[in-house]
């Protein structure tokens, strides 16, 4: 099918779904009656292994799950937690929706941007270590302001606590 054909001269691509990762995917596939249902878990595996999901990765996932690359891309772009381009070594998500907003969440964002050197939301710090973004409600409103650093969910963050947090991850 022309949709999955790679143009000639593409540099060698290292597949994600080999060895242990492929075994994990097989286990995932066993949970659902369709291959397509393993798409979100498969994308998480790619992001775990590579840090982000490239167009080429999407084509590989499509191949493995008998979908088209365009279909996979449509799904990837829908869900905000999948990175479509490389991000800093540490990815910081700060909730700024109203409940946290009332409790100074925007100050927490500014503190992270300043302390990490990332500069502005979405940008990566010059040393490549940090990307900080604002996100919508993280479901911990009573523990304002919640922050996700990579897979670590940190509660009750105030601007004063930010330097210590950043230090821990350096």
């Amino acid at each position, binding site marked *: 099918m022309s949709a999955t054909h790679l143009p000639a001269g593409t540099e060698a691509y290292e597949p994600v779904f080999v060895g242990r990762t492929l075994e994990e995917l097989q286990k995932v596939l066993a*949970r*659902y*009656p*369709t291959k*397509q*249902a*393993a*798409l*979100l*878990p498969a*994308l*998480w595996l790619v992001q775990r292994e590579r840090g982000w999901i490239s167009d080429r990765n999407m084509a590989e996932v499509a191949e493995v*799950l008998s979908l088209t690359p365009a279909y996979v891309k*449509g*799904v990837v772009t*829908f*869900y*905000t*937690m*999948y990175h479509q381009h490389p991000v800093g070594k540490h990815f910081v*998500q700060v909730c*700024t*929706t*109203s*409940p*946290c*907003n*009332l*409790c100074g969440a925007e100050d927490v964002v500014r503190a992270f941007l300043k302390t990490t050197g990332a500069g502005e939301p979405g940008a990566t710090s010059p040393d490549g270590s940090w990307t900080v973004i604002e*996100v*919508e*409600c*993280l*479901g*911990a*409103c*009573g*523990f*304002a302001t919640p922050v*996700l650093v990579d*897979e*670590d*969910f*940190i*509660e*009750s963050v105030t601007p004063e606590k930010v330097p210590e947090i950043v230090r821990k991850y350096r």
Partner: protein
Amino acid sequence: MGFPHKPHPKETVVLSKYFGDAEARSLKGWKKRGGYEMLEKALAMDPNAVTEEVKASGLRGRGGAGFPTGLKWSFMPKEPKKPHYLCVNADESEPGTFKDREIMRWTPHGLLEGSVIAAHAIRAKTVYVYIRGEFTEPWTIMEQALAEANGAKLFGDIKVYLHRGAGAYICGEETALMNSIEGKRGNPRIKPPFPAAAGVFGMPTTINNVETLAAVPHILKNGAEWYKKLCLSNPKSTGTKLLSICGHIAQPGNYEVTMGFPLKDLLYECAGGMRPGRTLKACIPGGSSVPMLNREETESTLLDYEGCVERGTMLGSGGVIVFDDTADMVYQTMRLARFYAHESCAQCTQCREGTAWTTKILERILAGQGKMSDLDLLLELADNMTGKTICVLSDSCAAPVVSALKRFRSEFEDYIAGRRKPVLAA
């Protein structure tokens, strides 16, 4: 991580009994506390009998819609011709709500127990627990609990799987949740067909919220009558509700009270009242998608489904967002509109374009460039966005806008008239 508070004397502690009790997370600890006895009892009962008990209890969906749970279960075919599914909605993303997170963090086995009992009642052999992607700690804890339970072969031939979301509020909508499990964009579906007829993978499906399912073992243990008696106001609202209190409040957290409990007491007594020197200005009692109340209304609202409707709002998910006199209602309304604009799935014209347009108008008002006609325009857009779309995200964007304009119009006018300095760049 964050630690829950000691129960306030006015709380009715049922679901939150073991919040803060780390031992309760383990299978051993949970069994020591009487866990999984009800699962054993339920698995030996006729599925219809389980459903009838839950129906009689008056339990209603705690995710926001408040649909009678037993009735929902009874929509499933009594004689399965196709595989049945139970989906557990752990996508908790409604701003102001953080109760399901606590249930999973502290009583993961309680949730599993309730889910498998429900699966038995609806004759489902497969359960998917859809946990939002950002809930990394609840995920790890649930994974561990599930491994323990599977190791002890507690669930018979009922399979329970965890499915991780990836950042989409709309996946909390039951049909969008099903699409997400199927490996699709989280788009809500048009109904009919309804999930009980054709749900996930086209099969009969029931979707229940975490808090709803966590209540099930308690109902089986103490009986439907006991649950029905937990009622302070309208008999159609029974049992307890976890209210997640956040925003401008002295002691934010989850508080469990009997249905019909006065919102005033919840805020001023249980949650410690306002911060020092501050007064209550507004309150959203049911998560950001329900209309906001001013102080008078807040102080006279009874917390059950009917009581909130009486005040012109809804109990919803029970996410109580408190605004004191320092809150900028215009800014917060804008921030909520921006939330909905960010989360719109893009299917329906009114939602896709309307949420963004509403946000832009509010941003311009905050930038000192609003016009008086903008306020009428906002109301008209809100009306056009209500009751006309596949799901209610569109309506949910309209609700705070309409209610804020109704109760705090002067704050909007202050920005427009230049009496208040702009807080956003032009």
